[in-house]
Every structure is written in C-alpha cells, then in structure tokens.
C-alpha cells in the first residue's frame, strides 16, 4: 500500500507539473488541480494511512492518525476555493480575449 500511494502521488505530481508548464491556460489549470491533489495525498500518507478502516476505529493495530486527515480536509476546501477563482479568471479570458494561449494573453510588459 505504501509503495502504491508513493508511486501514485509521484506520478500525479509529475503529470501536474507537466500540465502546468503548457502554454494553454486550461491545461495549466488542470495541472494546478493535479498538484494540489497529489500534495493532499502526501499529507494523508504522513499519517500512516492504509485506507482500510476509519480514523476513529477502536480495533488495535488498525488505527491511523486522524490529524493529517483533518489537515487534508482543510487543504481540500482551500484548494477548491482557489480553483473556483482560477475558473472565474479563465472565464474572463475566454469571454474577453477569446484565447487560451498564454503567450497571447501575456500583455504586461516592462
């Protein structure tokens, strides 16, 4: 399970970075979500999470640390707020500039 989670979060993070560096703003927003989710997975992993039982179980030897799960909940909420803001920005780009190309959107010069 440990190796599976580690490998998954590594792959998701890598894909996220790759998407984020693309020129299309929608793809880079998808990269943003992937990265924040892989970090959530990492936090979950810090609490010896096995995914077998709930955090409040009384079965000895099966417990996992509830605190990282609380942290992940908070991080998910914050991530959702941030991502909805990014979607709003993308909407403005789509309506006003009619392009998703980062190079054409970038007009702030020195």
């Amino acid at each position, binding site marked *: 399970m440990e190796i599976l989670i580690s490998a998954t979060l590594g792959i998701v993070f890598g894909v996220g970075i790759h998407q*984020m560096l693309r020129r299309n*703003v929608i793809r*880079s927003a998808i990269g*943003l979500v992937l*990265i*924040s989710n892989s*970090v959530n997975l*990492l*936090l979950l*992993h*810090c*609490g010896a999470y096995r995914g077998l039982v709930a955090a409040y179980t009384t079965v000895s030897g099966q417990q996992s640390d509830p*605190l*990282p799960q609380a*942290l992940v909940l*908070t*991080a998910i909420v*914050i991530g959702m*707020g*941030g991502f909805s*803001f*990014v979607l709003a*920005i993308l909407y*403005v*780009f789509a309506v*006003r500039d009619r392009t998703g190309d980062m190079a054409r*959107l*970038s*007009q*702030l010069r*020195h």
Partner: protein
Amino acid sequence: MTNDRLIAHLVLVPLVAPLAAAAFGVLVLSRRPRAMARLALLAVAAGVAAIAAVIVHIAATGEPIVIHVGGWQAPFGINLVADHLGAVMTLMAQSVMVGGILYASRCKDRCVTYAVFYPMMLTLAAGLAGGMLTGDLFNFFVFAELVMISGTVLTACSDNRRGIEAAYKYFYISLIAATSLLVACGCLYAAYGTLNIADLSRSIASRPDAPLAGIALALLLVSFSIKSAAVPFHFWQPDFHTTAPTAVSAMLSSVVVKLGVYGLIRLTTALFPHDESLGGLLVMMGVMGVAVGGLGAAGTHDLKRMLAYSTLAQIGFILVAIGWGSPAALAAAIVFTFNHAFVKSSLLMLAGLVASRTSVKSASFGAITGVGRSVPAAGVLFLIGGMALMGLPPTNGFISKLGVLRAGVGAGEWAVLAALGVGSLITMVYVTRAFQRVWWQERPEDAPTTSPTRDSILAPALLITATVALGVAPDTLLRFASHAAEFLAEPGNYIKASLGGGEP
C-alpha cells in the same frame, strides 16, 4: 487575574474584528460602499488599538500572551502566541492597513464600489494578523492562503483591463509557495509528529538530522522567499503593481511581503536556529536583492514599477540583517521591517495619486511627467518618503539603515556593508530621477490633458507623518525591537511561553 484575561482576549481582536466586519459587510452593506468603508476602517482601527494594548502589556511584563483556542493545551490544541515579534509585526500590518482602507475610501477608482472590495481588504488584514500571531505551522498556511486569495481577488477587480492577467500570475506563483509550505508541513509532521512551532523547535533541536527535516527546511525557505519577494524568487512582484488598484498595491508591497519576512525570522530563530548554512544563504540572497532591486528600479519606466523594484532592494537589507542573526542584527531587521511598511505604502499611494490625475490612469513616466506640478503637496511628501527610502535623517529610514550598519560593523562584515552602501546610492539615483520627472520637469506640449479629479492626499500624509515621527522619536520602537531580539535569541523562551514549560 481578570485584567490578564481581558488583555489575553485583546489578542483575538485583530483577527476577529475584520472577519466579523467582512461577513457583516457582505451580507448587509454590499450596496453601500461608503458605509462599508467606514465599518472596515473601524474594524481595523479596533485591531490596531487592541494590539497596541497588548504590546504595552508585553513591554511591561516581558512575557508573551498565549491563547489556547478552544481550551486545548498546546501542542494538542492550536494556540495563538503574541510574543514580541508577532505583536510588533501585527501592529505594523494593521496600522498600514488602516492607511490603505483610508486611501481606498477616498479614491476615484471604480473598483472600490464593488461589493467585494472592502470585505477582501478586511480578510487581508485578518489573514496578516492571524499568520503573524499563530503558533501553529498549518494554521500559518491557512492564514497565508487567506492573504493570497484576498490579494489576488483585489488585484483582479482592478479598473485596469490587465488586472486579471496580473492576478492570474500572482495566483500561480503564490500557489507554488503555498504548495511548498504544505509539503513542508507534511514532511515535518512525518518526521516529528507535530506542527506546533514551539513543539517543532524543541523536537528539531533534539533530533536535527531526522529524515525529511532538510527537505522541510528547503521548502519552507522557498515558500517564505516567494512570499517576501526575495531575489531570486521575485519575478512575480513588479508585474502586478502596474495594474493593481493603488490602495491594494500599496498593501501588497508593504505589509503582505512582510508575512514572508516574519516567516523567515521564525525559521531562523525558532525552527532551525542551529543550521549554519542558512544565515550565509540569506545574506547572499539579500545582497542579490539589493543589487537586482536597485538596478531594476533605476531601469524601469513606470513609477509604481520602480517602487516595486525598490521593495526587492529593501527586503534585501532585511534579509541580510536576518542572515547575520545576532541580537543587534535581528533588532535591526525588525525595525527595518516595521519602518519600510510605512515608507513604501505612502510612496505607492503618492504614485497612485499622481497617476489618478492623468487621463490614462497610468503611472508610467511618459504619462506623468510634469503632472506633479499641480499637486506640490504630494511632491513634498514624496521627497520626505524618498529620503526615508534613501536612509536620510530625520526620517525612520535613517534609523533602519543605522541599525543594519551598526549590526554589520559589530559582525565585521565589511564586504556586505560596501554592497549595501552602493545599493543605497542607487536608491538616491532613482528616487531623485523620479522626483525630478514628476514634480520638476515641465509637462510636454503634446501630453494629454490632466483630469481635475484625483485621489485624496490624506492617507499618504498620515503615513508620511508616521514615517517622520518614527524617525524623530525612535526610542520606543528601538527598545521594543531589542527586547524582541533578546527574546528570540534563545529559542527556549518561545517554547516555554507557547507550551507553558511543562512536558506534553
């Protein structure tokens, strides 16, 4: 006893009052921007008064004030720790935020009439206060996110069409900082099983070479450097200044970057005080900041952008002082941080004031050459603020630089001091050039006409007054900062205050 409890609850005011006012404003006052502005001003001013009372208490007793939120003893619960550093930083942030809201309430931008504007300013204030007062690293992350989201929304709602683009960039870069901080939280939790800063400080001191601790240090350093716009993590910073509303850019460049500075001070004094390479790295980054910021400011063609670059240089001075790490240097860093917020916010407001007189509402030198001649009072204020930026008496900038100089002489760091001296000379070049172009030169014949409306001069005048007052009577601040530095020099003080001395 009851008096102590009352004082303890005052620590909550800078956090709770703006959040409550923001919620009330969104629900009730969304169509009445003037009433909303008054409420916002009141809420943040209440925060200033409360934190000032807390500071008086701390100065009298020498003991920090700790609140265990929800009644759970730290490190199991989350606590708020108003120690010397946290309290003085909060006072700075809240006072400058009062100036920012005052400027916004008397400016001609359309964006201040939007329903979100003042609530977002208030959440910005609350996020700053929370980040500087919390004793928990994950809580710091939450408040830093609050600051970042408020800052991006405020930038995005600017009158300038490109505000959205600037907000988008700012958001992405800040998100990298936030992600680094979150991963660092994960690493530290996996290594030490706690996220309370005091508890972490104790655990790291006893087991400094736990796996993941080094990674956590690197990630925290990256995160705080991005937040404080330290070179080489600065590239996002000048971009949004040309587009953000004046009141917002004045806040982002003066107090929001200080959240990162605060984080760096905590990093070097509480979390990793025994790491030898950290100090040298910060000094190097600081010198780079002074060079890049100074040259960038001298080479740019926009007054607001110039001031943004100058922030990089000033942050460089602070990083150098933090990097030296002696009590004298830490005191100098705190004084510098405090003073710079007032100087930079007032200068950006004056730039915005001049820009508001042009028909294109731009602060590029091409548009504002000679515009200042119709507002000579702003010129006088700009000159005083510029003197503070250069470090000339009788302004507080002189006090700041004197502190850094003394600390450097004490440490025998002559090469670094020489670099800082050259940086100060460059400051002189670009400030006088800007003053000359805006307030001295004749307006070109073919330039577009100036509009009669302009923003009020009240807020920058008040902030400049504070600048001069802090320069003429710096004793109180200096004394408090040196107490703060003594308190920080021994990590045990913070641990004892936060955790109550007993073993968990």
